[in-house]
């Protein structure tokens, strides 16, 4: 496309420039009527040359500037505030092909004029005119005719200066330089980025060589740091999420303990009743112990008697120990309950309870303890099955040792009985060990 106008068109343009009787805004209409869109670039080019080479009168210059202002408006990159601009950029990123960064080609001319507002009166007027044009393209100023403005009357022009305009010329300059910096140097210099194939002839090959030499001399081949990229994390077998088909639906639950909220102790009594005949779960045992801790008086309502106590010892030794512990302040009562141990057969659980009690209590009744130990010893002789007997002897030995360690057992009083027991079962290692311990203590 030829960037200049034909003589005919130039004459039309000159006519327009000299037309002082038409308002500025109507002038635009005339320009668009006389010149097609494709010719606008040429019109602007010609006007720029005329302005630069000072080929116009002052009035004509103003008209030329006005036409330039309207044919080369600021792009959205420069006029929008930051927020709008961001949105614009985002849209551009989504559709990168839709709007490449294009700067209005004649904007630098206008910006230069707007900057020159301190040189002479003449240019000051033009600068103000351009600034108004950039800031408010629909200003009332442009409803006037060129001859109404008065090219020297700056004060009059200042009246039209839009105070409220958001447009900041300084910001436009900065944005302009930012956008400009993104344009490749080759494009900025006006050099085309295509060259003819150097292989076509020797001369052109030399051009390429020169070009490469130029690049070499400009440090273009300075090596850069090699950054190997990380691989993706290996997908392990258990990383894939398997969805279990659930057959249960979890829902909030109704508190069925509501009727038992009023602590009428029935629950406790029932549990105790159960405890005499069957083994309780750990949780049930804890519940009893907790209730006893909180309300010691409940013991009286537990229905426990020396007669049924052995049942409790056998089924729930932990609970029976807790109960004995609570009786321990009442010497008389505890003796009655301990007596029940003497009356019944010695079992693992009864030994366990007494052992625990010996550890927890300062001193157990000596008489009771001696009788219980001799019961234990005699119970060993009553077992006919050798295997069961051996196991029982081992347990008795461990029990006696524990009593001795807790300093509960008076060995001197029972020495002969203990010695007989140990000698009788000397084939069992625990018994011979016990014997050695007793002998050492006697020394």
């Amino acid at each position, binding site marked *: 496309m030829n960037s200049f106008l034909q003589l005919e068109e130039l004459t039309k343009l000159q006519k327009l420039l000299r037309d002082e009787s038409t308002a500025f805004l109507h002038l635009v209409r005339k320009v668009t009527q006389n010149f097609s869109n494709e010719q606008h670039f040429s019109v602007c080019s010609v006007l720029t040359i005329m302005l630069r080479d000072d080929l116009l009168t002052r009035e004509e210059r103003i008209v030329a500037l006005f036409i330039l202002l309207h044919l080369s408006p600021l792009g959205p990159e420069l006029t929008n505030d930051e927020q709008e601009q961001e949105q614009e950029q985002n849209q551009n990123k989504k559709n990168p092909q839709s709007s490449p960064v294009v700067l209005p080609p004649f904007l630098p001319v206008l910006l230069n004029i707007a900057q020159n507002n301190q040189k002479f009166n003449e240019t000051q007027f033009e600068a103000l005119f351009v600034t108004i044009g950039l800031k408010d393209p629909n200003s009332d100023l442009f409803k006037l005719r060129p001859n109404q403005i008065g090219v020297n009357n700056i004060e009059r022009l200042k009246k039209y200066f839009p105070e409220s305009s958001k447009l900041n010329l300084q910001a436009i300059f900065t944005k302009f330089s930012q956008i400009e910096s993104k344009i490749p140097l080759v494009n900025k210099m006006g050099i085309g980025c295509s*060259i003819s194939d150097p292989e076509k002839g020797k001369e052109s090959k030399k051009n390429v060589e020169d070009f490469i030499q130029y690049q070499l001399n400009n440090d273009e081949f300075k090596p850069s740091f090699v950054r190997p990229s*990380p691989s993706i994390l290996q997908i392990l077998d258990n990383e894939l999420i*398997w969805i279990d088909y659930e057959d249960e639906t979890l829902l909030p639950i*109704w508190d069925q303990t509501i009727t038992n909220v009023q602590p009428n102790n029935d629950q406790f009594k029932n549990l105790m009743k159960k405890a005499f005949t069957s083994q309780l*779960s750990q949780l049930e045992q804890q519940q009893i112990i907790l209730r006893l801790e909180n309300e010691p008086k409940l013991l009286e309502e537990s229905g426990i008697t020396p007669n049924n106590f052995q049942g409790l010892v056998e089924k729930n030794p932990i609970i029976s120990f807790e109960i004995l512990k609570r009786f321990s302040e009442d010497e008389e009562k505890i003796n009655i309950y301990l007596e029940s141990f003497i009356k019944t057969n010695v079992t693992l659980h009864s030994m366990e309870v007494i052992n625990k009690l010996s550890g927890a209590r300062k001193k157990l009744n000596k008489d009771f303890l001696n009788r219980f130990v001799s019961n234990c010893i005699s119970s060993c002789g009553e077992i006919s099955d050798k295997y069961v007997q051996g196991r029982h002897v081992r347990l008795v030995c461990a029990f006696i040792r524990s009593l001795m360690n807790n300093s509960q057992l008076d060995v001197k009083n029972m020495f002969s009985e203990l010695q007989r027991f140990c000698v009788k079962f000397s084939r069992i290692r625990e018994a011979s060990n016990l014997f050695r311990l007793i002998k050492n203590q006697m020394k």
Partner: protein
Amino acid sequence: MDLAHRLFTQKKFNEASQQISTLLEKTSGNNKKIVKLKSHLALCDYMKTGCTQPEEYLETLNGIAKQFSKDLTTADLGYVIYNQAIVNYQLKRYQRAATQLESLRKNVGSLDPYLGFEATYLLLKLSIENNHISQSNELISLIENQFFQTNTKNNQKNSGLQTRNQNKNRQRLLMLKIKLSLCCSEHNKAELFLNQLQEIKNRNLQQQKENQIEKLNGKELLKENLCLNMMRCKIENSKMNLEEAKNNLWGLSKMVGNLKTEERDQSEFWSSFYNNLGCVELKNNKPGSALFYFKKALLANSQICKNEKTVNNFSKDKRSEIMYNTGLCLILLEKPQNAFQFFQGALVCLYNRPKVWIRLAECCLLEHFRLIKDKEQVGSLNRLVKKVIGQGQSRTVILQTGIGPNDGLNIHEESVSFEDIVSSNVGDLQFHGIPVQSMSLDYASKAASNSILISEKLLKIINNQNQKTSTTSNNNKNSKIDENNKTQKNEFKNGNDNKNENGIEKQKNKEKTNINHTNLNALKNGKTNIDLDNLSKNDQSLKQDLEHGLLLLSYISLCCQNPVTALSSAKMLLNYNPDPYREYLANIYAAEACCLLNNPNLAKEYISQTLQKRRYQVEKLFKGPKNLKIMSPKEYESDWSDCVTLLNLAFVLILQNDIQTASEYIKQASRMFPNSPLVLLSCVYLELSNGNNQNALELLKSCHAFYPLENSQK
């Protein structure tokens, strides 16, 4: 009260509610009774709405708990707390539910046994779902000791109802034991438990037949059966008996397909069926077919969502899980952009899993690599010539105008409009309410940071648990101080500004932001305070997540020209004693960051460390799944890693103006890879710096990557 309960079980919630209200009016002074009546009233109101108003119910329960917390113990408020936990669990607020259940567990001895079991059971379920193996084991032994009697003789003496309940609970526990065993990859153990479970169920069926009491209806029986068989498929799948797993799954589908029930009742089964089939296919290295099944699973799952918006349906909605699997599938199919969207969808519920964040970061990186590769392909690695067009006399060379460090993915995030969030299409499926962020390096860096924070937090919990069992009270004091510090720094780089349809997701976002920024200072200093030596086999993958997150963050930071973060995360990674591959990369990244920070001496130290441990068995580490063809294999050969080290060392020496030593390293590299463009460029530079421009030119011409004219002639 019994009447109210009877009405409640008959689903006459209005009448039950009225009954309780009159009782409440009559009651005064007894706080325990008032609490129970009020919580029952709230429960009736909640059930009345068909469980569609969980927030209101939770609010009422909160109010009750607050009002009476001063006068009553945790045990007294047990049911209130449990019901809060169960609703939170259904709303997938797992963290909150776990905290509430933990408080009940501490008081399990003083709880009503029924409640005690249910609370511990739910906590166990949660901890298995979150892969907390050691905690799960503890809970199992607690349940067994507390709630199941070991003496079978006594069991027989118990009342029939209690025995039946215990029997049921034993089955439920066995199911969880199977899941736990599978989490630990103990297939045989899982199989053993499954056989036990099957045996119990068979025995029960026989008893039911004999006694003709409380028969399960057909629907329940089928559900039980399906559940058990699905578990069998899971075991086969984890044992890598993929064909068998697949056949079993198809068998199940036939069973359900023949049923004459409403489609919406079956959608829960179909969503899990297709998802699991997809998992089997993916394991079988068939990502294409897996993707097909995952999409079907998503469609079936959308049926659940279409049903009433009840809490139950919400808890059955496994969209996030399926989307995560689909994302993995798409990564293997080299479609990081689509995978990214699916991982974003998975984030809605799985935000607490470090792997999801890692995958998101990786998607961004893969896209970044793709864009760079595309650009490179256009320019054939050429820095001068972009393209040759035309033929003969009109042949023209187009020069390159804009290759630079900012190529690839955008560094900065783009904001996404609300419309994009509401109607985002994922592949050919349309979902609502999925937060879709744009892919950017910034987002990748945030995702990597989040993965680090979460895995670090989880490792700290495991660490504390390990310490609890083995250390003295002094250590506990320290951890308390740590915890105090933790709570002061409540920060979470949330990459999503989720705008969801209902309040459920909003609440979850709140939870999301509650993830503590545990080790911000540590990241800045590149130091760690977690002891990773005593981790169990299962927790090792968490350590791997942490290390990989740090590696990604370091790399992405370099791409974003942020050497400070790159250096600190690389340093932190090196402190964790990573495997040789990560150690190598961390050293390289740290060295580059040092160069960018103008500290070539330190950079040299980092690179020297990689040289000292030359000949890493990198091939082994880089192998990965067979389907992954994302990286060019050449890049990860051990020779190549040596070559990179040499070139980088040369680069640092050039920075220090020691061209002579640098040239030795470059020559060494060129002996290893004489045709590599990167090595050639360095050689060209050497020739230039020695003033041999002609030699440099010849070198350039010898490599077609730089001089496509000759290449095109060939």
